[in-house]
């Protein structure tokens, strides 16, 4: 008796479930779909979701790449001023233009300075300088070592003009897991001797 009652209950439940399926339009549509199409629909949904996520990642990665290229290739580093301050000090002012939307950081500026082809030394500024989007001027103080002072003194005494040649680079930190890129600098400047 008990078993029969249980069977009755099960049958009722099954009937109810079938009714519920019949009432749902989505499930009835899926039920009416030919069996060969069901795996295709599932695969399409899966691939569409993955493709949507991939498209977002692809777009963001490409945008980051463009911004990183702007930050490094258009940074500039032109010499806008060269001033001989005192006997052995040269002030070099570089102009930077961050055209990207990234907040970059200049880690190091390191340059070799030549006066009429005579080497005056290697100078650097190892200081983290934040460079938000926009323009900025950074001054590097070059204290010439006594060993190379004769080179400068001779050129200042005997030459009418001094052709300065500055070559080196700037280490730029991008906001991608502290990724660094070196941007080269090669500038000329002319002063009276």
């Amino acid at each position, binding site marked *: 008796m008990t078993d029969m009652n249980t069977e009755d209950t099960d049958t009722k439940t099954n009937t109810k479930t079938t009714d519920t399926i019949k009432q749902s339009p989505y499930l009835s549509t899926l039920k009416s779909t030919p069996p060969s199409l069901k795996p*295709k629909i599932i695969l*399409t949904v*899966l*691939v569409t979701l993955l493709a949507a996520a991939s*498209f977002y*990642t692809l777009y963001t*990665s490409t945008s980051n*790449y*463009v911004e990183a290229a702007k930050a490094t290739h258009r940074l500039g580093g032109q010499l806008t001023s060269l001033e001989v301050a005192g006997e052995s000090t040269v002030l070099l002012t570089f102009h930077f233009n961050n055209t990207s939307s990234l907040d970059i950081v200049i880690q190091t500026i390191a340059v070799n300075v030549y006066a009429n082809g005579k080497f005056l030394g290697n100078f650097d500024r190892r200081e983290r300088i934040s460079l938000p989007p926009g323009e900025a001027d950074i001054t590097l103080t070059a204290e010439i070592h006594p060993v190379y002072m004769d080179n400068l003194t001779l050129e200042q005494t005997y030459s009418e003009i001094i052709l300065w040649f500055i070559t080196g680079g700037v280490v730029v930190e991008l906001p*991608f897991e502290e990724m660094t890129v070196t941007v080269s600098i090669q500038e000329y400047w002319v002063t009276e001797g």
Partner: protein
Amino acid sequence: MPNPFTLKTFKTFVWEAVYIIFLSIILANYWVGFYLGRISILPLIVPLTYFMASICGFLAYLFIKSIRRAFYATILICVLACIITALSLFMPAYLGVVDMEVSIYISLRVAIIMFIYVFPFGMGGCMVAAYLFPD
């Protein structure tokens, strides 16, 4: 012979074309991430980059269920993914940020190297799927 110009075949053609384009976007995404490294927001999983072509080939066969058509579809996926990757890497030059000639060279080089890798892997995935789930 069935008429190839019926609405049903057209629908199937469009559906398969969209599916193939989606798979090529998925594949290109991993390779762009692989080449851009830390610039990409994608977590860099190098083995997954190589196996993604196999996964795409596998999914292509499961959808098409015909070894001959899946073979051509996989080639198409590989070619499209290479083109998408090359275009993505070419974007800074297109926007005038970097040198055009160098960028064209880099993009073409990346596309060719990528195809050399993804084509055998994609075919492998397609063949494995065909072996596991025959027509």
